[in-house]
């Protein structure tokens, strides 16, 4: 029954995706293909697939995206030239990082409700992966900015700033987790922090939007069939990276569970010996 429920959740999410304004303007073929891609990604995510398979499929899809970027996608974009190709790795990491931070907020809330350490491990793993995705977004963004704007960092741009602030807050979250030893207290405090920082993400987005002028390129200008392939690869990459990050998230969570179990055994074992 649980798997059926998860598939239902996945379909509802993909249906909601269709309502997105950006998604509406795509060609029919791309919409169906990318919709199916993300649907599969969500199914993988919701643990209906064993971890090993999930990991291999994630990696295979990412390598396939790399192949598409090397061969299928048009070389030059009118304004930006080759440097725009980095977009296919920058865009997926950006949305995954944002999605995972908010997901971690939700899991932290659930941990506070049920006081179960399992959710704390899953939230911490989710945030660790999200920080890696955030770093990738920042670095690829900088290399792209270097080519497109001539300078790696523009302080007044709200999007760059939002991602930077998120990176700092969640690095502080990881530092905070390292400072506490008692697992129960660490779980509760980290969950409180997870919720507080998840609330902070939209706040930062709107607070800065009022004061910085927008210099982020809105849409890549392409025409004809080129646009079809570009958007296809873009959303294919999004699905691929999403599956890979979810696989890494499940892997890191199970590694944290194993560490906790190992500590428990060591603690019990040490108490028996004395």
């Amino acid at each position, binding site marked *: 029954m649980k798997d059926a429920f998860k598939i239902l959740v996945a379909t509802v999410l993909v249906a909601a995706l269709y309502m997105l304004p950006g998604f509406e303007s795509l060609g029919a073929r791309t919409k169906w293909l990318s919709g199916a891609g993300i649907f599969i990604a969500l199914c993988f995510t919701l643990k209906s697939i064993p971890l090993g398979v999930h990991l291999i499929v994630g990696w295979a899809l990412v390598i396939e995206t790399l192949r598409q970027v090397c061969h299928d996608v048009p070389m030059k974009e009118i304004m930006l030239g080759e440097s725009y190709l980095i977009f296919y790795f920058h865009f997926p990491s950006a949305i995954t990082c944002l999605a995972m931070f908010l997901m971690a907020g939700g899991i932290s809330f659930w941990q*506070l409700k049920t006081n179960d350490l399992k959710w704390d491990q899953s939230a911490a793993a989710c945030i660790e992966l999200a920080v890696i995705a955030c770093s990738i977004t920042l670095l690829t963004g900088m290399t792209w900015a270097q080519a497109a704007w001539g300078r790696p960092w523009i302080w007044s741009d709200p999007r760059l*700033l939002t991602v930077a*602030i998120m990176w*700092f*807050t969640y690095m*502080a*979250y990881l*530092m*905070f987790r390292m*400072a*506490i030893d008692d697992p129960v*207290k660490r779980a*509760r*405090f980290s*969950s*409180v*922090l997870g*919720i*507080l*920082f998840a*609330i*902070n993400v939209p*706040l*930062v987005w709107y*607070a*800065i939007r*009022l*004061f*910085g*002028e927008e210099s982020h390129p809105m849409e890549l200008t392409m025409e004809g069939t080129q646009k079809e392939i570009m958007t296809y690869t873009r959303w294919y990459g999004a699905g691929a990276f999403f599956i890979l990050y979810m696989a890494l998230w499940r892997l890191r969570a199970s590694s944290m569970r194993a560490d906790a179990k190992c500590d428990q055994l060591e603690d019990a074992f040490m108490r028996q010996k004395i």
Partner: protein
Amino acid sequence: MNGWRAFFSLIRWDLAVEFRRRETTLNMCLFAVLLLFIGSYTVSQKTELIDTFGPIYYWIAIIFSGTVGLSRAFLPERENGAMAAIVTAPIDAGVYYLAKMMAVWLYVLVMSFMVLAAYVVLFDFEIYGQYSDRILPITVVTALFCLVYVAPGVLLSAMTVGLKGGEVILRILLFPLMIPVIIVVLSANPRLFTDPELAVTYTSPETAMATLGALAAIYVCACYLLFPKVVEE
């Protein structure tokens, strides 16, 4: 209603303890004025430098010395285990959070008036001459600015007070949260501290107050709901 009575008595006795020791407020004022003093040397009375860098020192002095008050917020309670007694009293932990936040906010406001006085003296900001109409907007924006960083600050200090090296972690956690608030305030600086014609882009103090008010409201509600989870073991 019992909640309000407990709220006001918590504040009253917190102020009484602070008034007896006067440690936190004095520390904060001294630290802030010291920062401004160093700042005034870097500006060394060149008027165009003052217009750009002066207000920045004002805000940095307030936020850095504010964290001194925050990291000392829960020390008087933890001294004799009074925290345990307050938490097992029949009041909602959120009321205890609001009372502690108000108390720390008052200390920070006292400190920010001292900072304003020092700013007027060190950066010769003619508060009574040319900019006399600026007193009200500056105080309101400062008060809201202090509220926005005291609200999460008290929650974070409740979490980090027990840790080894807790003060450092409190600052590491608090400052990323405050980056957008500082940006909002710095963009309102030209209209507050200098004549607006000079500034290229600026936001009116009203929008700054509105944003700060909204941020403060959201943080206070979120921390009010989260505080019981922090305090209960």
